[in-house]
């Protein structure tokens, strides 16, 4: 206690404000943990699934506002925005899940097809195909990446990106290996098209071509889907 500390009421007010500051920080840091995970997942999915996941504008602006207020030391306004932030984070999490749902499904389906084809052709390492499958199984994808204990977010992003890129390379290699036999056949063009990330639509095949595919070795691996 020193003489310039004002009255005991002043001090209690200060203590109150100090606890309030800590509480806000606690909530912000909680939201930040989720945001970090979501960002890492985004990096993984974008790489592995070769897709782009956009960040919601509202989330971005909320974060931007909070950052500005914090820079100004205005924790009072931040307090009012913490709940909004939490809601926007939740929304982003939902969107991430939604946006990756279809590519993930395609990915998993493709990998399973490749595993079955490989059983017959035996041209690719089965273990690698199995790791491709298990990496994006439902569940916490980040837990399947080994991050350094003391790594900061930047390093984690780098790690996640690298791991994801490796899986993508394996995925691409397996696909090439399994389908290159069919590229030299009369329906090589069609296979090339089907192996791409934008498979051909049914209408692009004429009746003859469909008949040939049905009778070929690939028939068991061709899937028809509504798009």
């Amino acid at each position: 206690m020193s003489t310039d500390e004002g009255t005991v009421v002043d001090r209690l007010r200060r203590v109150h404000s100090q606890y309030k500051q800590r509480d806000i920080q606690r909530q912000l840091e909680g939201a930040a943990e989720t945001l970090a995970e979501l960002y890492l997942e985004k990096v993984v999915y974008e790489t592995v699934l070769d897709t782009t996941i956009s960040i919601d504008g509202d989330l971005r602006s909320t974060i931007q506002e909070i950052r500005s207020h914090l820079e100004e030391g205005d924790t009072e306004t931040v307090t009012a925005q913490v709940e909004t932030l939490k809601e926007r984070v939740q929304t982003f999490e939902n969107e991430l899940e939604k946006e990756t749902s279809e590519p993930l499904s395609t990915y998993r389906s493709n990998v399973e097809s490749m595993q079955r084809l490989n059983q017959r052709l035996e041209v690719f390492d089965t273990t690698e195909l199995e790791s491709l499958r298990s990496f994006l199984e439902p569940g916490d994808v980040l837990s399947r990446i080994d991050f350094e204990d003391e790594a900061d977010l930047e390093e984690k992003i780098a790690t996640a990106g690298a791991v994801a890129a490796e899986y993508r390379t394996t995925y691409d290699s397996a696909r090439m290996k399994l389908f290159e036999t069919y590229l030299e056949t009369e329906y090589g063009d069609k296979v090339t098209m089907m192996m791409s990330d934008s498979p051909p639509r049914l209408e692009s095949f004429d009746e003859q071509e469909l008949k040939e595919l049905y009778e070929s070795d690939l028939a068991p691996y061709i899937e028809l889907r509504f798009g």
Partner: protein
Amino acid sequence: MNSDNPNTDPASGGCPQFDVLPKERLHHLMNPVAAIRAATDEDRNIGTETDSYPDIFEFTHHPITVYRSNAISHDDNVDAKAVSEETVYETLDTTETRNHAVVIQGSVGTGKSELCTYLTHRLEEDNRPILEVRKDDDLMTLLTERLPKFYKEELGKEFPNTTDYERMREALANPERAGELSTLIVVNALTDLRTEYDISCSDVERADFIEHIENNLDVIRTVAEEDRGSRIITEQEYNQRDYLKIFENDDIDETPAEVINSYLWQGLLDKFNTKGLKEVFELVAEEFDRRPVAVFEDFSIASVQAKELGNFIERDIHGDAWDFVIAGTPRTLRPLRTQTFLNRFAVFQTNREGSNQVDFLTEDNVVEFIEPYLTYIKAGDSSVEVLNADDGRGLTYEKVPPAEDSRCGQCDVCPSQDHYLFPFNEVFIERIYNPGLPEDARSPRELIKVVEEILEVTFYGPVTAPSTAAGDLDEADLKNEVSLRDAVYEAAPEFADFAKWYGEKEDGYAVVPRYFGDVFGLTGTSNGGSEIPSKTGIEITSTEIRVPLPETKPDLTSDSLTDKAEDETATPETTDDTPPAEESLVDREYDELSADVDNWRQNPSEPQYEEVNRRISDAFEQLFNQLTGNLAVRQGSKLRYNLSRSKRPFVYADIGEQVDDDQVKLDPQEFRRSTLRAVLRYGVESAHGDASERGILKDHGTQLTALADRWQAQIQREFVNHEDLLYDKRKSEFEFDDFLVAGYALCVLLDNPWRELSAETLQSCFQSTADLTLDTTLATGLQDGYVSDDQIVVFRTFVGLSPWFEDLLEARVSFSGNRLDLVDVRKRMTEHAPYAVLDAVVQSGIERVSQRVRFNSDTNLRDLATAARKSNQHLSELESNTNKRELPARVSKSLSDVQMTEIESLVTDLKRSYQNLMQAEFAEQLTELTEFEQEDIDTVLTGAAIANRDEYSKMARIHSTLASTKLEAHPLVAIISNLEELQTIDSDTFAPVFSEVSEYYVN
């Protein structure tokens, strides 16, 4: 006149002159102030033109002889030359063109006022303007009432500057102006002082000075207050207060306090543009073509103004035209005693040094002196032939038979040659004077006072004879040494006082003229007189009543006593109807011994009266114990004097036994025989285990109580208040009561140092039913390292003695109703800080206090003094060893204007919102904080304010040290001192994870 044919009613005092004399006229006649005797009372028609009685003063005035003296002093070697009052008057018949004065000096009651009144009479006859200044007139009254009134009466116009004085009086009486007025007075005085003296007075000292004056404005207003006079500051105050010591150089003519007082007065007068005494006298004198005379009949103007007046009187300036007649005692006249004054003016003394006796009243002329007063009573008609005195001044009377149609002429109660002195005779008057009055009280005033009292009780009260009235007076005031035969007291007591006062000793008898017995109803059954038993030896003839004096050698052996007791049946306690056979043991013993009482009274140490002596002495001792509350040193106090078992608290007078300091002289002759017999009866009853003091105290309590009071006063004087006790002899300015107030103040301080140390606080503690105890919080603070456990025990013991201080305060410095004498206590605390008083208490002084002065077997006065002294020493050390602390200022700031409700609200909010973030210990602290109440905050703030004072006096520093020590130990202070705050997080380190992550979302 003869006893067979009295024509007056004995019950009314027997004299027709008193029947028509209103009591008020008697009081006017006997008034000790000559000026009042000389004054006219229109309401009662006394001294008016239609008054049938002569002028009282002229009729009763006795020419006064005074002694010319060359000094106003107590010096025994006064060159005393007797001069008449006429000579004194002639000194005023002057053609001087300068001021002139006559000084009359004398003890109280020796005729100063009489002489002044005489001179006034003479001066009035000369048509001189006379300004009469009364005893009670203070400077303010003189300036604002007497002089303006005199001016208006003599000159018929308003006094020029009355309003200035009235403004000044009003301002002094207005408390709202006290501060402003004090500042002006002091600033004016300091400015003027600087022109004459080298003085230094800092701003702080000046502020203290002003505050001192502010506190003393009452004194200025009541300027002639006893002892203090107009001394705005006293010598004692000057010596004790450094801020008053403004003189750089001590080499000044008068005492510094007087110089300052003089300038303060001038400062006050300047403020209101009023003229001083001197200027006013000048102004008045200019208006007269005859020399005005100022008569101070009892000069009591305060010292400073008296000196100023003296300077005016003695200045040698032609044109000054006042004559002054100044009468006073040596003490009050002292300020006029300058060499110039003594060289220029005559000083007369009314009494010789060392004696209150005056030449115009001696044993030889006491009858002559009093006779005019008694004659005046009969001078309302032609009963007395009033004449103008030969010299044309005053009245006298011729001793001729009263006119036949006058009241005295129609009455035959007393012989005409005796009616001048009636209802006294010469013997009576002479006995009143000597040995009646104590030797130092044989003044005109005392003589007249006694005569008036006797007359009043006889003629306007229940008593039928002046001798009875005289006998009823306290023997200390009026003594009679005539002793009569015991049988007179026992069988005809109504003759005892009669004979003792009127009776002339003659052949073994006290002989009284018969007519006194007739008129006061003692003789003759037809007018109320009683039968006189023959054994009394009283003889009544047609002209005399002869009452026997004691036999020179009483035959009072024990055998004869027994016989006598059996013979005598007419004792006060037994009746003729009670046969001796049925007497109880008590009655029998009493009867046996009572006959010896009068003889024992003459000589209590005589072995033959040993038995009476034992019973009476035991009785006195028991009554003493009863009346003094078992030898308490003062009524109502538990402090008692533990008298040695081998001693009684009294020793009989004149028996050659040594009287110790713890004993008083008891003179049996001062007691009435009836009282001594009652004491004997009580002693006998007590010896037989059957005594009740109620009766004796009811009937005879006054004298016994006076004796007990005398013993208590002596014990206090010798064993409690004595200047040799308690204090270092060099610091003898302190009194015992200062010790009481200081000791109690220290107890109050230790009980709670967070109170102002004032008379009011002492009063509040004094009135509280709770005992004082050492403040527990303070004790904790003291224990926390500043004071040893032993010292704390000293403090605790000392405060535990506070009930004894209260006991003594109640007995000495309080009023009834459990109230301290606040004025006295405040004065003592102001003049003598408790620390200073107790610091003057020394071990040797304590050891001089007798161990016999004690409250009970465990506690005596020494214990009180020792505990007070030690505590004071320890507190002094504590103060010296303690550095000025920061805490009080911090606490003051921390709690200033803080409301408990606000704290509660904040803490509730804090805990509701963030308890999960708090350390458990901190949450507990917050809970404890809310358990205090607003009162606690206010109390701590008061304590902090006292602790934070920047004081110069040792007492105040001790007070603030204790307050600070308590503060440090107070739980509220501990909590607010330990109230931990969190580290505030800077914005650049706030929420680091968010800060890092958010980068990826915004870029």
